[in-house]
């Protein structure tokens, strides 16, 4: 090796760092490193850049503009009144006026809330997001709802006085704090009650899932108001077949539909398939069950299904066919 490395030697160094070299080759590289101060410096620089570039993925996934938009809502810029208790006396009429969202827990009251039968077309408003659509709805109190595909909500016209929303499907809520009027989301079997926070409710035939992004939320079954779960940010509760379960960890891909990113970190293929099915609303079948143990790591921004299939397929040496409405994944599996 020469004093000034050309590109061949740089590759050797990388493979050395990745521990891909034979014993003999390792010794050659090490000898070169220690043969001069220049070489040592060169090696350390390469090593440092190589090591530091493992954080690139993290930087790539950070969207400061988007997160600022979400964050600034929580900071009371330009507010003249400092104390948050005076909140309820002000009219919230525009999206721009927001109060600090506090992590205050609302103890479930469970009295006097309304059921489906009390909604009639004269006094209520229904908002629907069709299949493949996403819809953002602004509520009269300034809160907002982002409806996922094939979901709908209904609420009374006098919403400001009685903040109840009925939900079918999945939606992400950003709620304005109002101590005088608790915000409640009702699905077929559950009620989610909150003061000021952002959270996601996903309801389908089998279960209702509430994922909390910020703040605190009380989640309880509508048939048994004593059994309740208190959620903190990052937590998720699931209500299924009459039982309430609290899940601590949240799969980052749960809210993927909101930010158009799918991330997999050493994830088993079974998990990847599950997330793909939920995100793209498709059905994927795996021919060889051994494939399910394969692990995959990767991040997809603005994911496109065919691209993902190509990439994952190449990585795991699997092929994908489309059979009617389903996708069929076949391959040998991983070591």
């Amino acid at each position, binding site marked *: 090796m020469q004093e000034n490395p050309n590109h061949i030697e740089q*590759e050797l160094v990388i493979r050395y760092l990745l521990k891909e070299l034979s014993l003999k080759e390792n010794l050659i590289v090490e000898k070169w490193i220690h043969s001069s101060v220049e070489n040592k410096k060169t090696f350390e*620089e390469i090593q440092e850049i190589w090591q*530091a570039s493992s954080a690139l993925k993290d930087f790539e996934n950070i969207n400061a503009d988007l997160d600022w938009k979400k964050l600034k809502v929580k900071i009371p810029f330009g507010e003249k009144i400092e104390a948050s208790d005076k909140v309820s006396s002000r009219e919230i009429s525009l999206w721009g006026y927001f109060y600090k969202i506090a992590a205050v827990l609302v103890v479930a009251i469970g009295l006097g809330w309304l059921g489906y039968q009390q909604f009639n077309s004269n006094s209520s408003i229904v908002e629907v997001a069709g299949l493949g659509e996403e819809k953002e709805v602004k509520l009269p109190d300034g809160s907002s709802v982002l409806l996922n595909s094939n979901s709908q909500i209904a609420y009374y016209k006098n919403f400001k006085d009685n903040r109840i929303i009925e939900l079918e499907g999945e939606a992400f809520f950003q709620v304005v704090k109002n101590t005088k009027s608790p915000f409640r989301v009702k699905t077929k079997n559950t009620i989610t009650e909150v003061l000021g926070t952002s959270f996601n409710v996903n309801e389908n035939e089998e279960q209702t899932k509430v994922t909390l992004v910020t703040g605190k939320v009380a989640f309880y079954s509508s048939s048994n108001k004593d059994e309740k779960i208190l959620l903190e940010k990052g937590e998720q509760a699931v209500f299924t077949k009459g039982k309430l379960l609290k899940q601590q960890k949240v799969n980052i891909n749960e809210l993927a539909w909101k930010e158009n990113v799918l991330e997999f970190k050493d994830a088993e293929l079974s998990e990847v398939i599950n997330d793909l099915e939920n995100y793209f609303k498709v059905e994927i079948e795996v021919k060889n069950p051994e494939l399910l143990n394969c692990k995959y790591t990767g991040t997809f921004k603005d994911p496109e299904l065919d691209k993902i299939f190509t990439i994952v397929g190449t990585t795991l040496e699997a092929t994908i066919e489309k059979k009617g409405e389903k996708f069929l994944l076949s391959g040998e599996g991983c070591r």
Partner: protein
Amino acid sequence: MITETQLVEGIKSGDEKAYETAFKLYYGVLSVFAKKYVYDIEVAKEIVQDLFVRLFENRNSLEINTSLKAYLFQSVKNRCLTYITQNQNREKHLQQILILNQGEAVDKIDYVEQTELEEKIFNSISKLPEQCQRIFRMNRIEGKRNKEIAEELNISIRTVETQISKALKILRENLENYLLIVILLYLKMMFL
């Protein structure tokens, strides 16, 4: 162009533009920095976001004697350490951190320079030539092996290797001055 002093002034007086500027400037590097302590990027981002809210709340009593950046780094670090100690899975979590840091007390390790270097590299990547950049990203960001990259782009593995080397060469040249300073500090840290 807003100066550091103006930025600090703006923050102390609660000016929204100042907060927005500071946030967009430092959010990325602070979050990746926090992630080194808490291991979860979502938790890391949350910590940084909370910091900015608190910054506004306490703006009247703020005392920033060093630079704004240094102040923010220190604040984030403190919050991370608090988070670690308050974490419900405390035992398991602390153990994990200790093992990975090979016994050094986590509060003594300084990740600031390391994170700043990582940010510089990230910013430099976008200036690489197109093919070179693409391949480097596929390798380092998407985590693909050289064989996969070669197959996907329909080129030889040799070409992939050459391009990655080229990327490293350019990065080394761009960061030359910065690297010289950082190496000494880096050597003190555990190589993960």
